[in-house]
Structure formats: C-alpha cells, structure tokens
C-alpha cells in the first residue's frame, strides 16, 4: 500500500480509442492489486478493472486541451487512456502505477493476495488437478525401454529440469552425468514425448558444448541409447532449431552443435527459428501494427510483413511438422535442442505433440502439455513474461507464439480441437496476469525453493478454475471421431495459411470483431439440443411407464412435440450492439452524438446481450475490458 500516492481521483476521463464519442467520465481508484475506473452516473456495471500485474508500461503524454493524458499498455494488448484534469493527479497515478506494475519480489505478485473463498483443502487439491505421472503412463511409460531416473531428484545435475525425468533404461548414471556436463546448463537429452504405436520419441536437451572439436563419449552413448530405444529405426534425427549461423557462432564460445561424424547414425538438421530478441522486436512491431487507428489496407499489410511475425510463426510450425512427421510417418526418434533448450525447444516439442497426439487437442490435454513441456521443463516464465522488474532483454513472447501456432492450427482444422479460441486467450491472459501460481518463477526448483514452498501454500492453480468454466471453452464443432481429426494433423504451411490473430492482438477493440458470434450461436444450439435430448429421454422414460398402463400414450406423444417446438422457437437473441464506424473521417458535420455511453449505444440498436443466453461466466473476451471477470472474486 505504501506505493499508492493517490488512492482516488475524481473526474477522470476514460478515452475510448476507437471512438471519441464513447469517452466517459468517472472516478479512478488505485488499490494494491487493481486500477479501477468507475463511470459516473450510469446504472450498468460501467467499471474497468485492470490488474497491476498485467500492466506492461505507463506513459504520460503531453498535456492537451482536455487535460493530462496517461496511457497504460497491458500485456494482454489492452491499451487504456485516461485524461486527468490535474497534472499533479496524473503524475501521482503515474508514479504509483509505475511502481505497482513492477514488483520486485515474487511475494508482491497478485497470486499471493488473490484469495477466493475456497477452503485450504480445496486449494491444495487444486494443485493435484494435473498429474504428470499419469500423463507419462498415458503415453505408455515407464516401459521396458524407458524409466524415470532418480538422478535429478535434488536438482543437482540440472537445476532447471524437473525432478523426474525419463531416460532410456540402458543408460547408466555416469553416462547421464557425463552427458549433462557436455550440455549447456546441464540440460542433458531426456524424453518429452513417447509414441506408443511405434516407440519413436521426441527428446529434448540444450546445445552440446562441442566448440570446434570437443566431443563427449557419454553424450554420444546417450544419443545412441535413445536411438536404440526405438527398436524399429536405424537412425535418429537431431534437430537444432536455430539458424545455422547462430549455431556456428556459438561454437566460438565453446558451445555449438553435434558433429555427425562423432555420433553414430544421426541425421542432423537446422531449422532456423530466430532467437528471443528477434521475436521480441518482431512482436513489438506487430503490436504497433495492430494498434494503428484506421490504417489503410496497404499500411496494415506492409506493417504485417515488416513485423516478420507470421514468418516466425510459420518457421515454428514447420519445425513442429518436421518432427511430428519424423515420429509418426518415419517412426524415427528426434532429439530437439536450441541453445538452452527452454524456448524454441519447448515451442517445437509442444507444437509437434499437438500435431501428433489428439489428446493435446482436448482441454485437459493442453493443460497437461503446458505443465509438462513448459512449466516442468523450466521455461523461464517469470523472465519471459516480465513478472518481476528485471532484465528487459529476457522478455520474449515465446509462449505467445506457441499459443498462436495452436490458433493457426484451429483455423485449418476447425473440428479437430475440443477447446476454442477463448481457451487460448484465457491461458494467455493468466500467464501474464500472475493471478494463479502456476506460471510464477523460472523452474521447478525455484518454485519449490521459494520461501518454503509458499506457492502451493498460498496461491491457487489455474487449471481447476479453467476446468470449472469449461463450457465457455468448448468448441461446438469438435468431432474427435472424424478420421481427419485423428492421429497426425498435416497442416499446410503455405504462407497464406497463416493469418493475423485479431482476437488476441485486437482483443479489446470491440468494433473490429464480428458483431455476431458463430461460436456463441452454435453453443446455444448445442445447449438447447442437449436440453431437448434430456427432456426427450425423460419423456421416453415416462412413456415406457405409461406404455405399461396402456393409457394416455397418445397424449404424451403430443406433449413431446409441443415442448420441442416451444424450445426451438426461442429467439436466438442474435441482435447486436452495432453502430456505424467513421467511414470517412469527419466528413459529416455534427456526427451523430447520441452514443456518448455504452448505454446509448445499446439503445440505438435495440440490443440484447448475447452472453446472457449462454450459461458461462466468462463471456466474450471483449467484455473483460469492462470488468475482469475474475475480479468478482477478488478480496480488495
């Protein structure tokens, strides 16, 4: 609380950047966890809640006629502009927010103060929602070729790896230790995915410390053992996901890549995904493009091209596809690494897994995949997402890219995923929001060390929360039994198959999204169908009873029909909030000024709130801009 210089400011303007007509006046509150704006004089919930942990940066703009503007950029791509009547207020809020949004210690993060009304037992239980052991046994492990090595139980061999790691049964502890010494940060080759059908595996590691000529017998034995643990194949792929030039440069620093001459039966392959710095700059450019106000088509497309973002997404997808094809079609095992093996390697392994295994295309499966390939394998969430104040150079949208790869796949295979886009966006939001404890810290060890394991003591796990709301995240088009949705997905990687993800990057620009949602309509139809089916079942039961009595049967049949019609004739409520945009900037003097507030907007088109029709809590993402849905539970 000591950072809040000014807990409340009145007569602040909240500017709607898409339309100045919708600017509202209200009161701004700063709390320990949120910035809250409450619109004045409106009856509907005209509140804006912004978590401090989602704030990316705060910028004061030059004073204008209307006052002193403050711009808040959020990690979920929301941009909020306030205008203060007093310079001192603006400055105080600026100073407070700048500090509040840059916590120095993990304990300051929101997840440690987030306290929903659940008991201790339930909270602890939430951490058991996912079980990686069960995941490995789903894959068919351990088996006669692979087992868990106890070597890293104390995180002594590799402090960024999880405690439990699968290695070929045939490798001895000295081989593992030897191999780990020959790999950056001790990240020796270990199993990420096992394909039950043909025994091919995806293994992951960091780069070898090969320099120009160094070799390591144990490391070579390790790879040999991995290759041999796939009895059907005579070689394995080693995929270095970096551009060749980068890998070669690493040799000068005593690192590098595997020399095919030293390792038996490996086929070595570069893939050329750029490093975290390139990706960070690329996304920055993309965000700038997405935030352009009424750009021309040329500006937008040129900006998109110049950002290179889609090129990077394509390269990650191609890498994933290469690996998944090697495993599924050739039955060949693959070892994947980059430099440290926690960014590109995690991306590529998990994309390959989604392509290979339909399980990861289900809600539960994707959660497990996050836990396995990202959280447990030491993706540096806190560094990459900038959870704490620290090195700006460590921040990079690695996880965003993985989520986007899944989204691109969903666009190509609309019936292959159990979850929908909202699920991905929700996960994205919570990775950055620090609302839950899952993505705090940079490795399993750090998480365990953190002040006597307070993460599991004091924070909650996101997965049960998402699972409870799963109705919102379901894809009504999911058809798991359709043959093209089983087994390996073979996406096209033609450039035109990669699209701009408007729902993520323009998430809060309501006016840019379709005014009616196919997804919501389908969900409604599905719900209604389910209701009808239940009802039908009920009636059938009754009929069976009545049949016995041989009475009133006809009457009941009629009842079924009537209720069916009645339900179907329910309006879908597909009317919408919709007003014309500025189709020609300011050509008409005195443009219609009836829409000062959302209330006005709703009146003008006779809108029914679509979300009221579906049962979920977390409705359209755009509505979160009005109020963070989770903050309902917040203890202020």
């Amino acid at each position, binding site marked *: 609380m000591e950072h809040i210089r000014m807990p409340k400011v009145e007569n602040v303007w909240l500017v709607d950047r898409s339309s100045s007509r919708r600017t509202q006046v209200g009161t701004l509150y700063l709390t320990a966890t949120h910035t809250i704006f409450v619109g004045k004089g409106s009856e509907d919930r005209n509140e804006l809640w912004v978590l401090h942990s989602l704030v990316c940066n705060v910028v004061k703009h030059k004073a204008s006629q209307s006052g002193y503007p403050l711009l808040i950029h959020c990690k979920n791509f929301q941009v909020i502009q306030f205008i203060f009547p007093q310079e001192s207020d603006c400055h105080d809020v600026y100073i407070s927010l700048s500090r509040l949004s840059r916590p120095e210690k993990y304990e300051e993060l929101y997840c440690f103060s987030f306290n929903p009304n659940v008991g201790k037992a339930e909270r602890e239980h939430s951490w058991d929602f996912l079980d990686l052991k069960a995941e490995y046994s789903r894959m068919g492990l351990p088996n006669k070729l692979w087992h868990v090595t106890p070597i890293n139980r104390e995180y002594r061999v590799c402090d960024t790896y999880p405690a439990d790691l699968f290695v070929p049964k045939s490798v001895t502890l000295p081989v593992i230790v030897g191999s780990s010494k020959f790999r950056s940060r001790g990240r020796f080759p270990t199993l990420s995915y096992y394909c039950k059908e043909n025994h091919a595996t995806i293994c992951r590691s960091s780069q070898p410390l090969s320099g120009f000529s160094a070799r390591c017998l144990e490391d070579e034995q390790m790879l040999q053992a991995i290759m041999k643990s796939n009895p059907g194949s005579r070689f394995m792929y080693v995929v270095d996901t970096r551009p060749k030039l980068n890998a070669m440069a690493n040799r000068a620093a005593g690192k590098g890549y595997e020399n095919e001459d030293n390792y038996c039966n490996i086929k070595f392959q570069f893939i050329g995904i750029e490093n975290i710095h390139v990706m960070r700059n690329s996304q920055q450019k993309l965000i700038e493009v997405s935030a352009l106000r009424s750009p021309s088509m040329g500006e937008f497309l040129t900006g998109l091209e110049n950002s290179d973002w889609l090129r990077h997404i394509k390269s990650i997808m191609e890498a994933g596809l290469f690996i998944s094809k090697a495993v599924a079609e050739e039955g060949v095992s693959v070892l994947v690494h980059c430099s440290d093996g926690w960014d590109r390697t995690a991306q590529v392994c998990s994309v390959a897994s989604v392509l290979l295994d339909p399980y990861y295309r289900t809600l539960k499966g994707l959660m497990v995949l996050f836990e396995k390939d990202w959280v447990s394998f030491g993706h540096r969430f806190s560094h990459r997402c900038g959870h704490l104040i620290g090195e700006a150079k460590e921040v990079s949208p690695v996880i965003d890219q993985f989520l986007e790869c899944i989204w691109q796949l969903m666009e190509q295979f609309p019936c292959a995923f159990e979850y929908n886009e909202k699920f991905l966006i929700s996960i994205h939001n919570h990775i950055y929001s620090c609302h839950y404890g899952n993505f705090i810290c940079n490795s399993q060890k750090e998480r365990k060390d953190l002040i006597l394991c307070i993460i599991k003591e004091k924070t909650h796990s996101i997965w049960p929360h998402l699972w409870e709301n799963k109705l919102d995240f379901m894809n009504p088009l999911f058809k798991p039994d359709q043959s093209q949705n089983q087994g390996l997905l073979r996406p096209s990687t*033609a450039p*035109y198959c990669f699209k701009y993800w408007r729902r993520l990057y323009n998430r809060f620009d309501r006016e840019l999204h379709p005014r009616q949602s196919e997804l919501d309509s389908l969900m409604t139809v599905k719900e209604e169908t389910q209701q009808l089916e239940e009802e039908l079942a009920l009636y059938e039961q009754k009929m069976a009873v009545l049949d016995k009595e041989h009475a009133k049967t006809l009457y009941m049949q009629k009842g079924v029909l009537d209720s069916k019609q009645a339900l179907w004739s329910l309006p879908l409520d597909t009317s919408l909030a919709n007003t014309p945009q500025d189709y020609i900037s300011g050509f008409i003097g005195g443009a219609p000024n009836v829409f000062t507030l959302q209330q006005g907007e709703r009146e003008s088109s006779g809108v029914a709130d679509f979300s009221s029709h579906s049962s979920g809590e977390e409705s359209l993402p755009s509505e979160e801009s009005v109020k963070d849905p989770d903050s309902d539970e917040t203890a202020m």
Partner: protein
Amino acid sequence: MEFAELIKTPRVDGVVLHRPFMPTVEGTLCLTGHHLILSSRQDNTEELWLLHANIDSIEKRFVGSLGTIIVKCKDLRVIQLDIPGMEECLNIASSIEALSTLDSVSLMYPFFYRPLFEVIEDGWQLFVPEEAFKDLESMTDEWRLSEVNKDFSVCPSYPSLLTVPKDIDDESLCKAASFRHGGRFPVLSYYHKKNGMVMMRAAQPLTGTNGRRCKEDEKLINATLCAGKRGYIIDTRTIAVAQQAKARGGGFEQEANYAQWRRIHKAIERSNVLQEGLIKLVEACNDQSHSMDRWLSKLEASNWQSNVKEILTTACLAAQCIDREGASVLVHGTEGTDSTLQVTSLAQIILDPACRTIRGFEALIEREWLQAGHPFQQRCAQSAYSNGKPRSEAPVFLLFLDCVWQILRQFPCSFQFNENFLIMLFEHAYASQFGTFLGNSVAERLKLLLSQKTVSLWSWVNRPQELERFLNPLYEPNNLVIWPSVAPQSLLLWEVPLQMHEMPKEHMDCEISMC
C-alpha cells in the same frame, strides 16, 4: 457451324486427371460441343464435367509421348490432364482452345441445355419491375414507373421500365438522359422505408470542360429532396479522376448548379485496374516460393483487399447518409454500371434486411446488376488466367460478392444464405448452363430471346432440393441495419474462390444437421 468440325479427337482412353486436394482419376476423356468430360466409368467415382465456356486458358507440356494439358478455369480452378499420345493431346488441346473461345453468344451452352427437372417457378418471371414498384407504391406515392425507355432508345443499358420522381415527365427524363453518360439518367435504386430517404444511381454528368449544365437533370434530382433538406452525391472516383473525365466530356456536378447537394469523392478503382488486381492476387496464391514475405508483399501489391475495403467503405458511407443523416443519396462513377452498382447493392444489404434473404438477394442481383445493365458478358468473358489481351474484363461482380462475404462473416447469423450461395453465383456468372448472366443489358437479353430459349438460374436455384445447400443454419432474421467494420484487421481474404483449400468448409452445416 457444327461443333463436330472443331472436335478432332472426340475420345481418348487412359487419361489421368489431377485436381488439387483430390485423388487422381484415370478414365476416358470425351469432348462434346460444350463439355469436357472425364469418366472412370466406375461406380462411386465422380465424373468431371467441365464447360468449355469455363476454360480461361490452357497450357501444353510433353514428356516423351505423354502429353499434359493444364486447364485453367474462369472460376479459378486449375486441373491437369495427362493424355497418352502426342497427337491426341495436340488434338484435344486445339479443340478445347477453339471451343472455349467461340464468339457467338447463341452458340453458348444455355441455348442447348434442357433441364432434367421440371420448372415449377419460372425464374425469368420472378423479378419483374412492376412487382418491385407495387411494393414501393405501398410505401410512398412520390414515384412513378416510366416507360420512356420502352424501346431502349433513351438509354440502351437501362431496362424498359424505370422508377422516377412522379413530378418529372418523360420529356425531362430524355433531356436529363442526354446529359448523362450512356443516357443513364438518375433513377431510383432504393427507398428506405424507415425514414423515406432514397438512393438513386446514374452515370456521370456530361459537364465537359466548359461546365455544361442541364436544368432538367438538376430538377430531377432535386425532386427527390424534401423541402429544406440536403442530399449527398457520392462520386465513386477521386476528385482528380473526376476532373480528368471532364476532358473527355464527362465530369461531376458543380456545387453552383446543385446547391442542395454535397458531393463526396471516394476512390473505387476502375474496372481495368481491378482486373490487374485479380491477376496479381491469383499469381500470389500460386506462388511456389513458400516465402511469407513474398506472399504478403504480393497480396498487398494486388490491392485486392484495398479494393474490398474501399468498396465496402463507400457502401457504408452511402448507407450512413441515408439511415443516420436522414439524407437522400445519388451514387455514380463514370459509366454507372460497375462501381456504382457495387455501392448501391451493398448499401441495400446493409440497410435492408430483405436483401439478406435468398429471395431478396436474388431480387437484388436482378434489380441492381442484371436489369441495371452491368455488362456481365464483357466483364466475365475472361478471368485471371487469360492469355489474351484484356478487353473489358473485370472482376466487378466477384468483388461485390467478396464484400457480401465480408459482411456475412461479421454477421454470421443475419443472412439466410451461406458462402456456398455466393460461390455458386460467382461460378455461374463466368460459365453456366443457365441464361441468366448472358448478355450485357436487358435489351440484349430480349434480343437473344433468353427467356424463351434458355433456363433461368433462379428456376433451378429456388428448387427446395437445391436451396438446401445454400441455407445458413444459423440464420435468425435481424431487422436492424448492420454496420460492418471496414478496418484492415477485420477484413479477411476470401479464400474459397481462390481455390486455396480443399472445398468450402461445410462443417457448420453438418454440425447443425447433426443436432
């Protein structure tokens, strides 16, 4: 002329057909006067029936005695035929070339096609101006149906019956016609029931360099304004283009002479530029380099999405003037047969819920495109793969359909029809067994006796068994005006006509039918 003369080899066995995203088929290739047919003569395999009229261009290749013909269609499909025997291949190729470039309209397939179904509702009689006028009469008495163009002498590209202000007599209409390009004087396009505002369309006024004026023209359009109200003239060209038009006798309405009107210039490209755009877009889609940079820069250079955005924006503007400003609107470009119609028809889709039904959309195509004199035959003579020198080909109608698709994507529950319906219209505009899109104007269609000698597309489409696949399962009538977003972030690339994927995604329909 006998088609047989052009068919040197009517039949070849052992031909292999390759189509993107589909398994190859081996079978017998047959050429008839109007079709290229490939059949494996086995059950359960689809036969290929391709209209020669659909063929845009062909390419031949030889490897030894195996010939390959790549057939590029106007609906942008590309298929490959492997034909054993060099002579057969050459014969087939030259026959296809000859048969696909026949100039005479009366040799086209619609004149030979006999439907295998019973015509219950004759599409030719479905959308007559008299009926539309009856609807109008029920709402207002300020308009009349004029027969001034009965013999098409006042305006050859207009229909014989036109809706004009009641107080303007035929003589004034003739004078106004002489002041407008191609005789296309201002006529009613749409009446907005909600507030009584109207949209009119015309061609450019012939002011020329010396600023000619025409009192009757001024009176005609002023007659559509309520007392004391101003209207908007939407010129689909930039001010610079409109200025240049003066040198060729065209021009735009001078403020001094049209004091009650405010003129707005937009920048919809002329049809020849649109054609270049389509060619570049298709090239971009077929680029084999697989480079993201190349794709995006080629997509941008094609200007296709820019064109979609500009057309849609102009239509939204027209609709906004009418619905939000409560003002009447006159739309024109140069000839008034291309960009003008894109704008007036899209504005109606935005404003009028009736146009979002199947029947209403058909009526709109009939009214604002066919009867309004969009030169379909010229515009759709060739498509993106043509080797020939472009004459007046242009994807004006395809761009209109693309814009409709954009609105459909943004309002997926407000249209009775689905994407398949738009694709079907695109295909039939370029090549069809039906006579609907033949000819360039009502006058030409009458001369060709289309309604007697050919079947109307609507006669076929409106049969319940056909309609089924064009219905949008999510449709819930929405009586509101629908304002689409025209931001680049909101506009998508319409991939289906570009043949980028395996078939249109019909998942949604299956899903609903499952429920």
